[in-house]
């Protein structure tokens, strides 16, 4: 059963507009963003929902990744497109699904454009670096380091470009999203923020999170409405507490354990788990705080994801996916061991096994190797990515004081290069 929204009502209707002429005043301009939700009691939100089923995404991920392997990777552009269509259509806000309209051919084209540019850089520059590194340092460490450092700005650049492409191909209620050009601006800002974060041992991490998010949000459009990131970076400090506390407690206990009671090392070990939770907590909480401080015109958001729930999705999902994939890994090692001739070397060779031939086992080994990746991909979608999307979607409410119907379409962003750079550089994305 789809619940379709009927928010096509005239702008001057609805109970929240009884204030009449004042209604266009943005009350959130004068109150701290954290308190915003309490000030909009009468406005009924467009509730987020996720209607996708686990079995379907497992099947789709498995099927499309098999095609990807069989086509030596070419199908991955189609795989990505189909997976995104599915995820986007599963998310419903106010009953209306999102839509992903990216085209696999344009992804392939964008990828080829990126390859033309990057092949030159990577082929020639890596060769030169390797030569110089061995010539002057008798070592390849300098080459690897410089090669890596050279790719870092490109990596941020690609991240922003990929976001621009994905937003330009995302629609909701028939209206396009969009992101203004600004990838180099993002790349150098990201470099500076990362530098500051590393120099301050992570203390300025919230500052980086906030300013990079603000850079992206303030350039994001929904139709003809520009999104805004409000608030201050200091508001993210509470979110970082489960990262800082275990670091401090764990550190003290490690020192105390070394000089006084070795049993305190157990506390340090426990702090490791706490720290892992802290990272998840920070990601969830900072997302919540930042989302609740965003606006698109008069439209605001209420996100209430649970860090504990997200943590358990990660723990359970990775455990389950890893367990299932490792069953295949056992078969892989068996086949690989036979192929490598270890069996014959330790004298355990059976006549029948030898007849099948080492070649057949090598093929079996390769097939299992692929099977592990396929199973892992499908499991990770069904038990990690999808539950995460579901949780974030279900805990999101879009609060629209009757303005949404007036939002107009924006022109199509052709953007031929698509997410080619991100694809070529393997800039990680969940899907």
């Amino acid at each position, binding site marked *: *059963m*789809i*619940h*379709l*929204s*009927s*928010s*096509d009502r005239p702008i001057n209707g609805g109970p929240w507009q009884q204030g009449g002429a004042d209604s266009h005043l943005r009350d959130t301009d004068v109150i701290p963003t954290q308190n915003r939700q309490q000030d909009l009691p009468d406005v*009924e939100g467009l509730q987020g929902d996720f*209607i*996708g*089923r686990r079995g*379907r995404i497992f099947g789709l991920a498995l099927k499309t990744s098999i095609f*990807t*392997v069989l086509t*030596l*990777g070419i199908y991955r552009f189609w795989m990505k497109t189909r997976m995104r*269509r599915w995820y986007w*259509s599963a998310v419903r806000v106010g009953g*209306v*699904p999102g*839509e992903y309209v990216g*085209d696999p*051919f*344009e992804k*392939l*084209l964008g990828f*080829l*454009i990126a*390859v*033309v540019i990057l*092949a*030159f850089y*990577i*082929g*020639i520059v*890596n*060769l*030169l670096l390797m*030569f110089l590194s*061995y*010539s002057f340092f*008798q*070592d*390849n460490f300098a*080459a690897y380091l410089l090669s890596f450092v050279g790719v870092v700005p490109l990596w941020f650049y690609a991240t922003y470009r990929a976001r621009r492409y994905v937003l330009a191909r995302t629609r909701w*209620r*028939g*209206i396009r999203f969009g992101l203004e050009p600004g990838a180099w601006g993002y790349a150098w800002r990201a470099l500076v923020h990362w530098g500051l974060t590393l120099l301050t041992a992570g203390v300025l991490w919230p500052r980086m999170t906030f300013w990079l998010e603000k850079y992206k949000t303030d350039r994001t459009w929904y139709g003809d409405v520009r999104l805004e990131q409000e608030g201050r970076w200091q508001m993210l400090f509470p979110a970082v507490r489960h990262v800082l506390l275990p670091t401090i407690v764990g550190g003290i206990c490690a020192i105390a354990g070394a000089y006084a009671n070795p049993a305190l090392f157990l506390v340090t070990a426990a702090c490791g788990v706490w720290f892992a939770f802290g990272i998840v907590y920070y990601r969830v909480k900072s997302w919540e705080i930042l989302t609740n401080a965003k606006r698109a015109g008069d439209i605001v958001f209420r996100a209430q994801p649970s860090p504990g729930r997200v943590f358990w999705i990660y723990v359970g999902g990775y455990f389950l996916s890893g367990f299932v994939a490792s069953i295949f890994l056992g078969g892989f090692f068996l086949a690989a061991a036979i192929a*490598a001739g*270890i069996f014959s070397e330790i004298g355990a060779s059976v006549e029948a096994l030898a007849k099948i031939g080492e070649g057949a086992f090598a093929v079996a080994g*390769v097939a299992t190797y*692929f099977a592990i990746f*396929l199973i892992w991909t499908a499991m990770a979608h069904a038990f990690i990515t999808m539950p995460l999307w579901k949780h974030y979607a279900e805990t999101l409410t879009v609060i629209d004081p009757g303005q949404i*119907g007036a939002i*107009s*379409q924006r022109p*199509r962003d052709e953007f031929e290069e698509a997410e080619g750079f991100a694809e*070529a550089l*393997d800039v990680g994305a969940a899907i």
Partner: protein
Amino acid sequence: MTSTIPTVIRVGKTAEGQQVNGLFFTGEDATAHEVALTINPMRDVLEIRGRGQVVDWHLSDVRLVPDQAGRQGLVLRAASDPTARVLTNDRVLAQGFPALHKRIADAPRARLAKWAVAALASVALIIFVLVPIMANQLANFIPPAGEKALGDATLEQIKSALGSEAISVKTCTNADGLVALNQMQARLSDHTDLPVPLTVTVLDHKMVNAFALPGGHVVFMRGLIDEAEAPEEVAAVFAHEIGHVVSRDPTRHALRSAGSIGVLGLLFGDFAGGALVLFLTEQLIEAQYSQGAEVAADAFAHDMLAKAEVEPAALGAMFKRLKAKYGDTDGIQAHFISHPRMAERIEAADHATPEGFVAKPILTAEAWKDLQGICN
């Protein structure tokens, strides 16, 4: 405000003439129009009717938006309109649209072919022309210390790759065996000037193989010594590998790999098991550029052997046995093996023996026994 679409009002038994409720998005603004949807068989259209909305979509123009997560209801579009959408929570209409699953290409695809050709051409240019030219040139300029370091690093990589788990493959160090190996090396290099001092290593591995690495490294696998029936056969392979050292093939190769591996990684990406495809492709490229080098190394070996009073046909003898045991490398497999076909090499070796040639044994029977026991 959310509301649920009321239940379907069924007028007829088929999709035709039935009226269902839905939402219509014009693609011009974000307003959700509550509409009634009817298939009109007389006019062959889907009638979309709501307050202020009178839109007709031709039935053959109606498409299902693909890969929907929702199993109930329909998300529809018109092929001719990229942005307008109709949502309904009833699937009964679906049977009324003849081209529901037909593909639509919204994105312009005309430029794809041009870019595809340009991309592949430039990658080919980089891998097959630019990188080899640069590698060939740079190989002449890399200082000896750097070249040696490159070879040392590569040897370590090979040793750990051939070993199992965390244990590298063993280097053979039997003292008598090493003496015999040195004798062989001295005899071969006596009459030929070498640009770099040789570093000879025997690895305790059953693979029948030998190879050269940058910086004067020559590496034998135990399997090759086991397989040889006479020390001259080992000497022949030795001379061949020295041929590679002299022409600095391994250095070129190492520099070439540094350039081309990254580019191939770019092309194949991180899809499932991409690393494996990468490896196979790298092997394929290898075969492309080292055939000429192999023939040159063979020719160098024939010359060196003749000068050292060893019959050049010994190289052929080794190959003959390998051929009898493993067969020639015709067919698909031939592309993955970097050496020219053995039959051709055996013939070349047989023809390389000058007339009236008198051979002198390269090792005494005792020294040959020592060499065979180098890994004990």
